[in-house]
């Protein structure tokens, strides 16, 4: 049972990585840049949702919606102010800018919301009355007489991930904007000659990635409720790893990479060592990249002549 428990926790954690990894991979696919501030957008989303629900008493769903809206606008603003002026700059300049934006967001959060940890509420707990009349918070379902315990957060996380992946696949496969995004990721000048505005497309990509980051932030906080201004960096780095692992630029790659990374991490924690789990995760990444430098589902990048 402990195997099944670990597997389910791994898939759940991996689902969060996968949702965050989408932001990295889509932005990389289209703007050809690594947006290292992406992890901190998660943190902003979590704070917005926290304040909306805990301080202003909004219902959870409205809190999440507000977080998504704020992060979408934040992502587009970051892109316009920080990255768009560097469109033709060397990639190192863009990378350093992204790291700068990341520090800016963390320090702005420190100033605004102090370093004191906030305890993120569990939206998925249900108040249950026992037959004896006692009241307790039910946070999950128990199967096989309590041997297998799955929390609601876990179930919702996995479900949300699946829905997002299906929706995004439909979006990039069937809509005009989605196809334009794929066209831009292949060849920007050719896309311009088709009448596609590359700037708009990049903007939309940032909007989608950042909105998803807000959702991931809420899900991550629901599972690990300790909210501080640096909350976003570790899941951000892990999700970036997941994106590279799966093949950066590929949406199914982000899905696969995220899930695998989550499962490996939890298994390493369960069966090997909690302290070494991150080292094991990154060791697996290094091995995969040595064998397949483009990642699991990454395509060979062909140099144009």
């Amino acid at each position, binding site marked *: 049972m402990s195997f099944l428990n670990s597997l389910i926790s791994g898939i759940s954690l991996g689902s969060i990585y996968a949702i965050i990894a989408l932001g990295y991979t889509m932005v990389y696919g289209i703007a050809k840049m690594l947006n290292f501030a992406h992890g901190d957008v998660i943190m902003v989303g979590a704070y917005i949702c926290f304040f909306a629900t805990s301080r202003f008493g909004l219902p959870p769903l409205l809190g999440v919606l507000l977080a998504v809206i704020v992060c979408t606008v934040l992502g587009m603003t970051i892109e316009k102010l920080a990255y768009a002026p560097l469109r033709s700059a060397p990639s190192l300049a863009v990378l350093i800018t992204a790291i700068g934006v990341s520090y800016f967001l963390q320090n702005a959060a420190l100033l605004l919301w102090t370093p004191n940890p906030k305890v993120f509420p569990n939206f998925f707990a249900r108040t249950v009355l026992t037959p004896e009349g006692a009241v307790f918070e039910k946070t999950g379902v128990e199967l096989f007489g309590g041997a297998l315990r799955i929390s609601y957060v876990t179930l919702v996380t996995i479900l949300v991930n699946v829905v997002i992946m299906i929706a995004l696949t439909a979006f990039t496969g069937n809509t005009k904007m989605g196809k334009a995004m794929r066209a831009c990721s292949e060849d920007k000048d050719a896309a311009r000659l088709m009448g596609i505005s590359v700037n708009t497309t990049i903007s939309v990509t940032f909007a989608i990635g950042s909105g998803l980051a807000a959702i991931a932030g809420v899900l991550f906080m629901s599972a690990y409720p300790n909210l501080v201004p640096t909350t976003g960096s570790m899941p951000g780095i892990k999700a970036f790893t997941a994106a590279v692992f799966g093949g950066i630029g590929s949406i199914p790659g982000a899905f696969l990479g995220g899930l695998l990374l989550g499962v490996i991490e939890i298994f390493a924690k369960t069966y090997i060592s909690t302290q070494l789990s991150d080292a094991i995760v990154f060791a697996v990444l290094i091995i995969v990249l040595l064998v397949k430098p483009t990642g699991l589902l990454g395509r060979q990048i062909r140099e144009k*002549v």
Partner: protein
Amino acid sequence: MAELLNVNDINVYYGAIHAIKGVSFHVDEGEIVTLIGANGAGKSTTLHTISGLLRSKTGSITFDGKNIGNVQAHKLVEHGLAQVPEGRRIFLQMTVEENLEMGAYTQPNANTAASLERVYEQFPRLKERQRQIAGTLSGGEQQMLAMGRALMSKPKLLMLDEPSMGLAPILVEQIFDIIQKLHKAGTTILLVEQNAQMALSVADRAYVLETGKITLSGTGDELIHSDEVRKAYLGG
């Protein structure tokens, strides 16, 4: 015939390199005009400047009565300008039909089906392969796809950049047949070619570009019989 495109004294630089030095020419409605010249003469640079991917420091580019010198590349399609870029530049990971749909990006969705029908009629081969990933097409088919994609926007002017590049002679003939058919159907064409023989044989008028300058111009017939052109581009 009304003048459709007027390029007047453009100068284009790549950093310190002066690639286009005061080039002027025009294309009238219904014409096939060709720019010929050796590799590196500035043919593609000229096309990219017209389509807005590059900018000229001087002069003006007028298209259909409007100054387009400062219009962004992606807005020119709506003005009726389409370019088939050098090396085809189709979207290799998308299907044939998706590539064509991208060509109609600026058109209302309601028109796409009719445009697809029209292009499939011109290129029956593309219809056979509509669900295929474009990267799996042969070179000739990819060129047809690039041309079909450009025609999806019903352009007033079709600019073709080296359509014969990398194709077997039989396919080159096919592509030029198609160019002539498109011309007969009323499309105005600006053709850039290294294959001077083929280009001059279909062109109404032609310009010879040498190291960023126009050195000769005339009707296709005149140039094909000109000694200078024969020596430089037609192998004696």
